[in-house]
């Protein structure tokens, strides 16, 4: 089964994604996508790490397009989050030339290696602002990936104030 969880900042989307994972069998892999650039990133990473400590994840740090990611066993994967991964493949150390098909292939590779996949992604499209070209490219790529995943995945949930709203499939 594949699950997409989308929400704005501080909407409770991680907590909800973790509650989906807590019902699914192990082994549990957490694919961490945030490159630890500065103290604020590191603090955020640490906060999330503490929050999920009880779920017994094996953390896999991966900052690229997922195509080279190899899982040793099948199980349940939580990928957090597509917003960071998108920034990584556009601007980060793992930059790629054609990021949309690359990440799409990476997702297929990941789906092929696990029994359950939960992807957390970000709703960052509602501030009504226009940004510079590279930021608009980021918004376009993340939006395209969100649409792709929503079409491809079995379940899609939007989280609002910690409340999951089912947009496709059914609530766990």
């Amino acid at each position, binding site marked *: 089964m594949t699950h997409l969880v989308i929400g*704005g*900042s*501080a909407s409770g989307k991680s907590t909800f994604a973790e509650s989906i994972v807590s019902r699914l069998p192990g082994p549990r892999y957490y694919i961490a996508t945030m490159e630890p650039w500065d103290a604020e990133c590191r603090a955020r990473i640490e906060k999330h790490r503490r929050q999920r400590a009880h779920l017994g994840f094996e953390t896999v740090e991966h900052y690229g397009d997922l195509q080279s990611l190899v899982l040793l066993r099948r199980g349940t994967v939580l990928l957090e989050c597509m917003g960071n991964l998108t920034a990584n493949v556009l601007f980060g150390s793992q930059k790629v030339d054609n990021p949309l098909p690359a990440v799409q292939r990476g997702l297929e590779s990941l789906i092929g290696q696990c029994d359950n996949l939960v992807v957390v992604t970000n709703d960052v*499209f509602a501030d009504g602002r226009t*940004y510079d070209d590279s930021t608009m490219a980021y918004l376009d790529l993340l939006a395209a990936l969100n649409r792709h995943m929503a079409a491809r995945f079995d379940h899609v949930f939007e989280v*609002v*104030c910690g409340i999951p709203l089912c947009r496709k499939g059914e609530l766990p």
Partner: protein
Amino acid sequence: MILVIGGYAAGKRQYVRDSLGYSDGQMSNQITDDVPVFYGLETQPDTPLEQLLQKDVVICDEIGGGLVPMEKDERQRRERVGRLCVALAREATQVIRVVCGIGQVIKG
């Protein structure tokens, strides 16, 4: 306590007037005012949860739907408003999300 959320100028207060039956005089953006409806939480993210829970209705803009702000203060405000809304929604008897003036009950 009923939590009413939605985008900027989405029609939240009008919804509270028309559908929940509160008058303008019963609404204030000052938490200390002795009225049942508090609005404007998005600009006052340090308001104590206990005080908010004593209101009949709390109205808050949804502000988490944009890119991460460049300014640290703005990032922190957004984070605090979001976390506060999650905590309020957990305690609320009802959560209503307003889009174009139309309310959708998403809890309760």
